[in-house]
């Protein structure tokens, strides 16, 4: 039965998350950005409330919530500030991997460490998209050699572990789990100024690092399958976060334009203003529903889940740009200065879009699925 009614459990989670977002996350967002790190007490509080373990299984002391629930909760958290949410240490984009493949022997020795110290951080390094990077993975007799420098990656600065998605020089897909003690990568010094400044974005450099077979999680078809499953869930979770930021920008711009006066009246009464607010509201709702749809499909193990996730992320990217830009525009000069949050939200939004997939590539991939059929795309 078609329904848009969240469950009671979801509503309880959302209430707590939204309260945290408004009372704790948003007030600290600027300071976290200035310090280029999420403050430890705030991160600790978020972790203690269970928001870092929504995706994880019970084995990992997680809540193992369905994606439809998680989408609503991370949206509520991101309503506070996307920059903070993306900067919280922990499992990051590796959480779906831990959910789906958490019993892999390679994780056995570090499981306890990861569970007990919430600041232990994993960065997901997906080097399939290589433009601007030169990471090369070469097979040797009983190991691989990894060298080169990656694109900027979220949480790279704080990472104790790296979950690596790559292809070797022969095109063979590989997933490996690296740890800093053994693999000794270098965090590059590049400076990010655009947005998500507290989320530890940096390039990683590898100088002929040896990846032993004990570090390898999966190869070939198995690796491809795993990568796609993890990407699918991440696409949806990131799109949900983007919707949270859109809602924040919409609400802020609505309130501002309801109170601001010009030419002797509230500027909301000018249709150039009110119609843009209406368009922002539509875009936000559109993105939200596509996220929900994708989440429901993945929760149901529907084979169309990946396509729906592509669709949700592409639209969320596009809507996020529009809504955050509109918020800045509607605040006028105030939108451009840092006394107001919207300029940060626009910067964060753009950085988020750049990190998580080029819009038109996502669209083309989805289009290929539609025209060629999913199987043909995989074979291609």
């Amino acid at each position, binding site marked *: *039965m*078609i*329904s*848009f*009614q*969240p*469950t009671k459990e979801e509503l309880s989670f959302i209430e707590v998350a939204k309260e945290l977002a408004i009372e704790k996350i948003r007030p600290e967002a600027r300071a976290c950005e200035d310090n280029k790190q999420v403050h430890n007490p705030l991160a600790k509080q978020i972790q203690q409330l269970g928001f870092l373990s929504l995706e994880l299984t019970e084995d990992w002391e997680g809540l193992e919530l369905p994606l*439809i629930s998680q989408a609503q909760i991370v949206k509520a958290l991101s309503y506070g500030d996307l920059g903070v949410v993306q900067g919280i240490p922990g499992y990051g984009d590796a959480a779906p991997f831990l959910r789906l493949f958490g019993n892999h022997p390679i994780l056995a020795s570090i499981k306890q460490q990861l569970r007990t110290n919430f600041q232990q951080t994993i960065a997901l390094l997906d080097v399939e998209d290589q433009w601007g990077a030169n990471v090369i993975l070469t097979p040797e007799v009983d190991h691989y050699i990894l060298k080169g420098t990656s694109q900027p990656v979220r949480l790279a600065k704080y990472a104790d572990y790296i979950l690596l998605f790559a292809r070797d020089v022969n095109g063979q897909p590989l997933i490996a789990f690296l740890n800093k003690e053994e693999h000794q990568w270098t965090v590059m010094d590049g400076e990010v100024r655009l947005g998500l400044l507290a989320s530890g974005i940096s390039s990683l450099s590898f100088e002929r690092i040896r990846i032993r077979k004990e570090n390898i999680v999966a190869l070939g078809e198995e690796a491809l399958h795993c990568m796609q499953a993890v990407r699918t869930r991440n696409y949806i979770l990131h799109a949900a976060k983007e919707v949270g930021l859109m809602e924040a920008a919409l609400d802020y711009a*609505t*309130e501002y334009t*309801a*109170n601001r006066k010009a030419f002797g009246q*509230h500027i*909301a*009464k000018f*249709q150039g203003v*009110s*119609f843009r*607010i*209406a*368009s922002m*509201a*539509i875009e936000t*709702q*559109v993105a939200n*529903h*596509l996220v*929900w*749809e994708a989440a*429901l499909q993945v929760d149901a193990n529907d084979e169309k889940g990946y396509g729906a996730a592509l*669709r949700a992320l*592409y*639209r969320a990217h596009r809507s996020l740009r529009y809504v955050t830009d509109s918020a800045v525009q509607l605040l006028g000069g105030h939108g451009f200065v840092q006394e107001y949050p919207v300029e940060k939200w626009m910067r964060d939004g753009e950085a988020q879009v750049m990190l998580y997939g080029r819009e*038109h590539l996502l*669209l*083309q991939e*989805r*289009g*290929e699925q*539609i*025209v*060629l059929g999913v199987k043909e795309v995989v074979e291609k």
Partner: protein
Amino acid sequence: MISFELSEQQQQIKEMTHWFAEYEMRPIAMEADKLGKVPDDWLDKVNQMGIHLNTSSFSSDDGSDKGQNRKREREGNRLGVLATEEIAWGDPAIALSLPGAGLGGPPIQSSGTPEQKQRFLSIFTKDKPRWGAYALTEPEAGSDASGIQTTAKKVDGGYILNGQKIFITNGGRASWVVAFATVDRSLGRMGQRAFVVEKGTSGFSCTKLAKKMGLRANETAELLFEDCFVPDENLLGGEALYEITNNKASGFQVAMKTFDSTRPIVASMAIGIARAAYEYTLDIVKREYPRHGKYFQLATEYLAEADQDITAARLLTWEAAWRADIGLENAKEAAMCKAFAGQIALDVCAKCLELLGPVGLENHLVEKLYRDVKVFDIFEGTNEIQHLVIARRQYAPFEIKV
């Protein structure tokens, strides 16, 4: 629990209406467009099959099943949008021409007296096709529905109507028309009343059928009221409706309330049209387009965008319908789905035409759909009016009237 899975009944309705759209409507779509009408024998046939465009059943809540079925969730609005998407996929002009109360149903269902509901909604029987219609728009009052000029002068036993209505779907052939008029122009909205004017009433005539860009098979009429006497029993809701509400804009509210249930229906029609164009073009692209190069890249991007827009519009529409079914206020959601669906449907059709190129000019369904779909961004409230409705709801917490 959030779910986008169809219930058994919803699935059945969808499949049944799709079957009808595919095998009964689509085969005559191009011919009906050329003829400028839906063939009478076809209308007789489908009427005997009991197939109606009866939007009133989608929004009914007369309480008739209260007590018998307390636990069963109403799903009439959701069934309505599911069915309408399918029949509009078959052909929108034919869909709008299906016998039944059409857009005239909801105001009678929501505001009519029990006697009026019985009188006007029970005529849609299998013996011959009949239609209802909804007449609000006038030459000088379209989007500003509060500015209608048609007058209703109280006389003994009824009202005398004078004025003109335009763009009335099925207005010429309708057995009755829900017409809006004002008892006192200076009262604005508060002066408005809704009447059910029956065909054949002295002083009531259809003066013209409009020639249009699209929806050519569907009748769009101009109606004239010249000293047209309408008895008291045809005042929608009766005098009691206006007394109860202390004359507070009841006629206008009847008109506006109708939109909350009909806008999702109109949105779902736009979605059906967009989907028809998309599926038609996708089929050609799959069969005839190269699998690489600039044409392929264009097709993948356009079709992916169309697929996404159609899905998004459908979800917005389902949300508006769901809210109506469970009794939540849905004016904002109804306006959102109408605004979005009306806009993307034209965009999808335009993209499909671009993919077809010059070939699409001759004997391809998509150019007809492109002509048909434009008005879905206009009637039942233009895109701009939908934005106004949304903005008003958005600013309501701040007590700013925009």
